[in-house]
């Protein structure tokens, strides 16, 4: 079961929900946690992984042999990202624009393009209690997060519960995090800002045919517009986390609140049961 915790808006509590859900489930399930927010991975602050080791993530960048190149320009034309420019007497490669798709070397009829690996970041693996913890980290100056997320997701196993902490927004890194997920758990806050970006997230998940559910964080502030929207759209609100000073204080000390409040462990387990029912409606009961 792959659950991606996502949000259109930043700072709504994705990591809070993902971390607490993973910890609550880890007492009775095998859980993998993947921090897919590779531009700013911070779930480790709460989960404090141990024994981390890292593997580099590379993409394949074209290298053009000008001895062989006929300057036909086929590669430049094929490149969706404009990473190659071909002129009458020279050819330029822009590695920072390259997405590593390899199309240029396929279309080259002169066999002038070889590929070299370029490191764009790393995936670190560690453990938190019984949780297998992964986090991706994009090298500063590198623009592309998706290859790191894709690499990290190869670690996902079918039989375990995988909790993916997605970056915010609706662009490529979010799509990559959601891709292949059984469920999108969308975290929002009950404000016009939260609602605006929640609408976008719901659209994205529906476009990808991924069932959605909502967690409203900081419940009690703002207005009722998120709840009204969810009701109108038939989007289930699966949890409300109150705007509680104690929860905020624990957060600011890097302590997941399920570690202090046992009743929340139960609520996150119920949340998972509801998700399981939505994903697999024919299953009669779930062992917890």
């Amino acid at each position, binding site marked *: 079961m792959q659950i991606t915790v996502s949000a259109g808006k930043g700072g709504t509590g994705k990591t809070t929900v993902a971390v607490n859900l993973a910890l609550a489930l880890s007492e009775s399930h095998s859980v993998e946690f993947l921090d897919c927010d590779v531009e700013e991975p911070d779930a480790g602050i709460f989960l404090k992984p141990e024994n981390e080791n890292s593997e580099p993530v590379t993409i394949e960048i074209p290298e053009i042999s000008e001895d062989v190149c006929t300057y036909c320009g086929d590669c430049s034309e094929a490149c969706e990202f*404009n*990473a190659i420019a*071909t002129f*009458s007497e020279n050819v*330029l490669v822009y590695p920072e*624009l390259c997405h590593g798709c390899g199309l240029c070397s396929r279309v080259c009829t002169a066999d002038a393009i070889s590929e070299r690996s370029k490191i764009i970041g790393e995936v670190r693996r560690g453990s938190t209690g019984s949780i297998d913890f992964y986090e991706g980290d994009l090298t500063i100056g590198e623009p592309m997060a998706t290859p790191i997320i894709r690499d990290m997701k190869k670690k996902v196993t079918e039989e375990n519960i995988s909790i993916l902490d997605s970056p915010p927004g609706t662009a490529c890194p979010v799509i990559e995090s959601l891709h292949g997920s059984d469920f999108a758990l969308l975290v929002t806050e009950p404000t016009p800002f939260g609602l605006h970006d929640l609408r976008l997230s719901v659209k994205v998940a529906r476009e990808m045919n991924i069932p959605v559910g909502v967690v409203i964080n900081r419940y009690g502030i703002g207005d009722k517009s998120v709840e009204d929207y969810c009701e109108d759209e038939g989007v289930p609100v699966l949890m409300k986390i109150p705007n509680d000073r104690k929860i905020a204080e624990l957060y600011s000390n890097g302590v997941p609140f399920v570690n202090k409040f046992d009743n929340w462990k139960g609520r996150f387990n119920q949340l998972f049961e509801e998700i399981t029912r939505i994903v697999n409606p024919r299953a009669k009961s779930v062992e917890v």
Partner: protein
Amino acid sequence: MNLAISATGDDLESKLDRRFGRCSYFIILDPDTMEFETIQNASRGASSGAGVKAAQILADSEVDNLITGNVGPNAYNALTAAGIEIFTGASGTVKEAIAKYKEGELSRTNEPTTAGGTGKSR
């Protein structure tokens, strides 16, 4: 001699477009006869590398010199590799920019005049 001008419209009365890679049109003209043709800038909406692609378009159109507002580092490298000379700091209409160019009032640029990606309308 082919002179290209980044423009917001498709004739000589149009305003010069200060963006290079994401300008609306390129007006390509012979400064001696003032005969010109206009091409829509196909790189305008590129997700990345608009400056590189625009330089490619100009090179494919056998442009020698370019008048524009600013060029970023990627566009500058590509234009230089293509042997296209860059004249920046122009403003007003395309016609006015050409007049200044002819009078030698525009400066030739030997480095990028802006950071990359600044023409993106996001």
